[in-house]
Structures are given as C-alpha cells and as structure tokens.
C-alpha cells in the first residue's frame, strides 16, 4: 500500500467514525424521503392521465412530452436534495478544527499536498455514496408513479446520464465546500460561504440581469448541467456548467492547500 492510499484510508476512517457524519446523512436521506413522499400521489395521477400521444400534464395547463417531463422531475428532485450535501462536506472538513485535531493530522501526514488530496478524495467517496443513495431513493419513488406506464424509462441511458450529472454536481460542489471549510477553519462558515451564492441563484436576480455572471455561480452551473434547456430558463450549456463546477472545486482546493501550508496548524 502506498502512502497516498494509506492517507485516504485514514481519512475514510475519520469520516465513518464521526457520529456527525451519520447524523447529517440520516437527516438528508430522511428529508429526501419526506420531500419525495409529498408529490408522489400527484405524479402517479398525472402518469395515469398520460394522453395517447405521450403528453403529461404535471402542472395544470402545461402539457409536456411525458418521458422528458418524468426525467426532468427526477433531475429537479435530486438537484434540490444536492443543496443539503454541502452540510455533510462541511461537517467532514470541520472536524479538523474541533479540539485542534488538525495538529494530529499534520503529525500523521505532514506533507500538505498529500493531506489535502487524501481529504478531498475521501470526502468525494463519501459524498458519492450519499448522492447515489439520493438518486436511488428518488428513482424508487418515481418508479411508484411510472410502474404501470413505462418502468423501463428509469433504467434508460438518459436516466443514468441524469444521475451521473447529479453525482458529478454533488461531488464537485462538496469538494468546494470541503476546501472552503478548510480555508475558513469553521464548519458554519464553510456552509454559509458555499450556500450564499446558491441563494443568489435562487433569487434569479443575476440570471435576469447578468446571465453570463450567473452562469459562474455553482448552483446556476448545476442547473445548467442537470436541467432540460427546453423546459427551464438556463444561463449556459451543460459543458459550461460542468466546467464551472470543476473550476470551483479546483480553485478552492488550491486555496485550501496554500492556506494549510502557509499557516501554523492550530
């Protein structure tokens, strides 16, 4: 086993032995079930009324092609839950600054690049698992709605591509949160700094006034990556969205490494 593998295993051990990680994961998944439960009946009714030419009317007066609409609802639901995942990433990264554990981590892994890389890889693996669980929960609920119409839609290539886009967003967004928390040395600050641009996106102020700038915000990039441009007002294309998320993760990771190498480990 090489030193990097050992470092990642150590970081994974830290993650799975931290009660806060299990609590936050449990809350996010429970919230997901709750959120999916509420419109389940509405979706089932809408699917039951799909017209012979394949249109569905999820929202009154807005008929859409059923397959695209169903996959769009699936993507929207997972995107919504993805907004809670930064809390998990911040709890993982923030543990270092409780009881000054960072000092022990530096003792065990004194090389900054290896330490930061192992932290980010372990966080990515953890978030990936939770993101897959969210996608599975949402798919299960959607299966309840479409099972008598076209259950194969949920295991189609387009459905899996949608899940892949969600998982990419979840992992990249959480890596940025992990890095920001490390720079800020505070779980709460990490959550606030990561979610503040999301609030700007949700206000739609930038999307209406300066769409090019809006497209650089992480949640806007996630919308551009995941949602159907035919149905939603988006500010850029999918590739642009993915590159923006990669950029956020890369820039914040470098900032975290520079901060850790230049500041005393306190």
């Amino acid at each position, binding site marked *: 086993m090489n030193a990097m593998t050992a470092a990642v295993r150590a970081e994974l*051990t830290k993650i799975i*032995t*931290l009660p806060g990680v299990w609590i936050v994961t449990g809350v996010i998944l429970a919230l997901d079930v709750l959120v999916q439960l509420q419109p389940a009946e509405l979706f089932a009714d809408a699917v039951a009324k799909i017209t012979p030419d394949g249109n569905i009317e999820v929202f009154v007066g807005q008929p859409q092609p059923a397959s695209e609409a169903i996959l769009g609802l699936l993507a929207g639901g997972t995107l919504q839950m993805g907004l809670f995942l930064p809390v998990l990433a911040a709890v993982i990264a923030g543990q270092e600054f409780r*009881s000054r554990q960072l*000092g*022990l981590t530096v*003792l065990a892994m*004194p090389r900054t690049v290896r330490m930061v890389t192992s932290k980010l890889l372990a966080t990515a693996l953890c978030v990936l698992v939770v993101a897959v669980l969210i996608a599975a929960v949402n798919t299960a609920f959607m299966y309840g709605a479409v099972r008598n119409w076209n259950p194969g839609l949920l295991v189609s290539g387009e459905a899996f591509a949608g899940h892949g886009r969600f998982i990419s967003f979840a992992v990249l967004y959480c890596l940025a949160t992990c890095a920001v928390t490390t720079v800020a040395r505070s779980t709460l600050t990490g959550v606030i700094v990561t979610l503040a641009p999301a609030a700007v996106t949700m206000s739609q102020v930038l999307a209406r006034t300066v769409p090019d700038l809006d497209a650089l915000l992480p949640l806007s990039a996630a919308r551009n990556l995941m949602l159907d441009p035919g149905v939603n007002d988006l500010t850029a294309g999918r590739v642009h969205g993915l590159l923006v998320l990669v950029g956020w993760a890369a820039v914040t990771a470098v900032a975290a490494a520079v901060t850790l190498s230049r500041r005393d480990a306190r």
Partner: protein
Amino acid sequence: MIEVSALTKHYRGKKAVDEVTFTARPGRVTGFLGPNGAGKSSTLRILLGLDAATSGRALINGKRYRDLTDPLRSVGALLDGAGPVPERRAVDHLSWMARSNRIPRQRVREVLELVGLADAAKQRVKTYSLGMRQRLGIAAALLGEPEILVLDEPVNGLDPDGIRWVRTFLGDYAAGGRTVLLSSHLMTETADTAHDVVIINHGRVVTQGSLAEVTAGHASLEAAFFALAGARW
C-alpha cells in the same frame, strides 16, 4: 537524535522563540523546562512541523519532520492542545492514526493495553477524564514504536500511579537507546526522570547540560531553575 539550531519564531512581531539551540541525544531523557509562555510548546511545534520557523532549523535524525516517511514510525508526539474529536471512540481515533502511517491494526490494541485503556477503548473520548485523555495521547505517541518521543507535559492530569508509570516507562524507553524530549513544568518529576536538562525563559535558552551539571551548586533542580531562569512560579 533531535537537533535544534538557532531556532527563532516571531508571532505578530514578538519573539516567542529566540535563537534556541540544543540537542536531545539517544539513550537519554532530555527535560525541556521553562515557565508558561517561555517558548517550550512553540519550539516543539516547530520541531514537529506544525508551526513554521521564522529562522533556524529543527531536525530529527538529520531531517525535517515533514520529510520523514511515515513519521509516526520515527517520532511519537504528545502535544498540549491538540486532541481527538470528543465524539469519536478512542479505538477509532487510534485506528485512523495507525492507518495513516501503515501501522498494523493490532498495534492499536497493544498501546491501549499498555496505557491501561483497553477496557475503555470503545468509549467516546468525551466521556474520558483528563487523565484518560492524557493516557490516550501517550498511546497515540507510542503507536508507531518510534525511536524518538516528544512529549509536552505528559503527566498533566495523571494520578500518582499514572505519573509513576510515565516516569518508569520513559526511563526504560531511553535505556533502550531511544531519544526522549520531555517538556514539563514539574521540577521534581523532571529531576526524577531526565538525564539532561534544557531551561528556557523568554524564548531563550538559559542553560543546558546534564542534570548534575545544571543542578551543581543548587539544592535541587527547582532551586537551579529559579536561580537560572529568574522565573516566578
């Protein structure tokens, strides 16, 4: 061997460590003494790569700490103020440390037994007393069976049995040809444990040498300490 040479550290323009030079040799327990704020912990933190020196160098077997491969196998350290997350179980805390340096898992159980925490291994650290936390810190320092031990106030919070155990253990450890650097404010304890002494005050080394050399002409190490450091206790 630990070699500290002309080590200086400034914090916001103030000198916390000022041209500190000393050596801790194998087979010896070196006591690092000084009043609070003298620069002991800062020196140890620089030695262990946690803080950056303003100038000077601190080497372990001729290398900077950060350049050691699997450093926990070479150096075991107990630092004041750096501890495990309270919600984590002791065994899990030691497990991640062991994994990070490719130390066999069975060693976790061994060090827990060595420090008398085997029965409390699955308890969360937040339920531990101060003494138990200190024992856990010593267990972490011993994980990699290191050749060098750097301990900052290791007997803080320990009961008399624990203090005696640490004293005996460190003596035996050094007798095996290993290096022990021990920072403490307990003069009697240090006099009972250390072979060599380095006294630091206001960031500067006041005197150093073997215990006999430093205490020569004084009734005790404590008397020598007050006379040499001019410190108020």
